[in-house]
């Protein structure tokens, strides 16, 4: 069991970028040593016939699918949200500002728990509105989907355009 392979296993298992310090703790060696090893591991990956790559990104290291293969396997990678939750988010984004009552009438009673999950993830926010809640999307939503505006009207227009297949998002 050599250190370089431990680093490789760690980057695979983490599924997100790790910094040299975290990795150094893991192998019980100084961060400089780890950085050196990672450099040579990155080079090795470049020479291997593989669709995976190791990348250094702002002092952190990540194992990922090479960009050329990313689109091809996207459908297989698990999504952050289950389909029903995503569907509820879509309804909120399109109709916002929209009351929870309205969302529930479109999506059914299961939407209550979706709203809770989406609020926790800060993709939507709510303010009390009579006996229900008024829901809107947040700056986090705008950033998450790489949208350039947070004007509800423009967002709706853009959604309509994408839906009609005029532009690809």
């Amino acid at each position, binding site marked *: 069991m050599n250190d370089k392979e431990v680093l490789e296993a760690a980057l695979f*298992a983490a599924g997100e970028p790790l910094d040299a310090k975290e990795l150094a703790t893991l192998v019980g060696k100084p961060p400089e040593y780890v950085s050196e090893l990672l450099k040579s591991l990155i080079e090795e990956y470049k020479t291997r016939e593989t669709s995976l790559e190791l990348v250094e990104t702002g002092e952190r290291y990540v194992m990922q699918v090479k960009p050329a293969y990313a689109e091809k396997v996207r459908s297989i*990678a698990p*999504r*952050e949200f289950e389909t029903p939750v*995503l569907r509820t988010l*879509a309804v909120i984004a399109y109709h916002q500002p929209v009351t929870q009552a309205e969302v529930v009438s479109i999506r059914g009673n299961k939407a209550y728990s979706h709203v809770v999950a989406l609020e926790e993830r800060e993709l939507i926010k709510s303010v009390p509105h009579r006996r229900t809640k008024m829901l809107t999307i947040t700056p986090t939503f705008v950033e*998450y989907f790489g949208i350039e505006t947070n004007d509800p009207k423009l967002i709706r227009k853009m959604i309509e355009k994408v839906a009609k297949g005029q532009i690809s998002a």
Partner: protein
Amino acid sequence: MIDEPVEILVNLAKDGEIDPWNIDIVDVTDKFLKRLEEREQLDLWVSARTLLYASILLRMKSEVLVEEGDKGDEWDFFGFQPECFQDFQIETYPPLRPKIRRRSKRPVTLTELIDELKKAIDLREKREIRRMRRGRSRPTAEDTLRVIEQEDLENRIRAVMKKLKRIFKRQKKVVFSELVEERTPADIVQAYIPLLFLAIRKKIWLEQKELFGDIYIKSR
């Protein structure tokens, strides 16, 4: 927040911090509803949550009771301890350690979000068509609550109690369906909610012999 104590209790029971076996649900719920009554107006949301939490506690408690009874049956049935306890008395069950795979979730793309929007619209249309075919619409919980909020709940509760008292003079039992003027979802709910409050305030007994069967109302 007034609704916190019960929620905390439920969570404690769920986490195994307290033994649901030893909670006096009636006591907890009574105290709680009393506090609600002390306020000027009943908040239906809060009382509905109280009922929900009480029912969760009750379920936990009944599960324990049912299963306690069950275990007894089983030992009797076998007449001895199951085999697995005889050969090796394992003391600490180790947390099993799964294989290490990559557990990473990718963000959703805008295109996927919009695809779901289309499907949501399709679904809604289908549902509306079904509704039209059925000739009536199924209300959501929000619709129901909106119906209630238009009314002064306390006045309705008083009116229902008055009506029941009149009937109880003639007979011991009332069938719920007799209280409903028109069998629309809104009317059914409007007739039912005051009964729930009256039952909780120990003015009446509610009894339902089978699921979806008729509900019988008795004086107490």
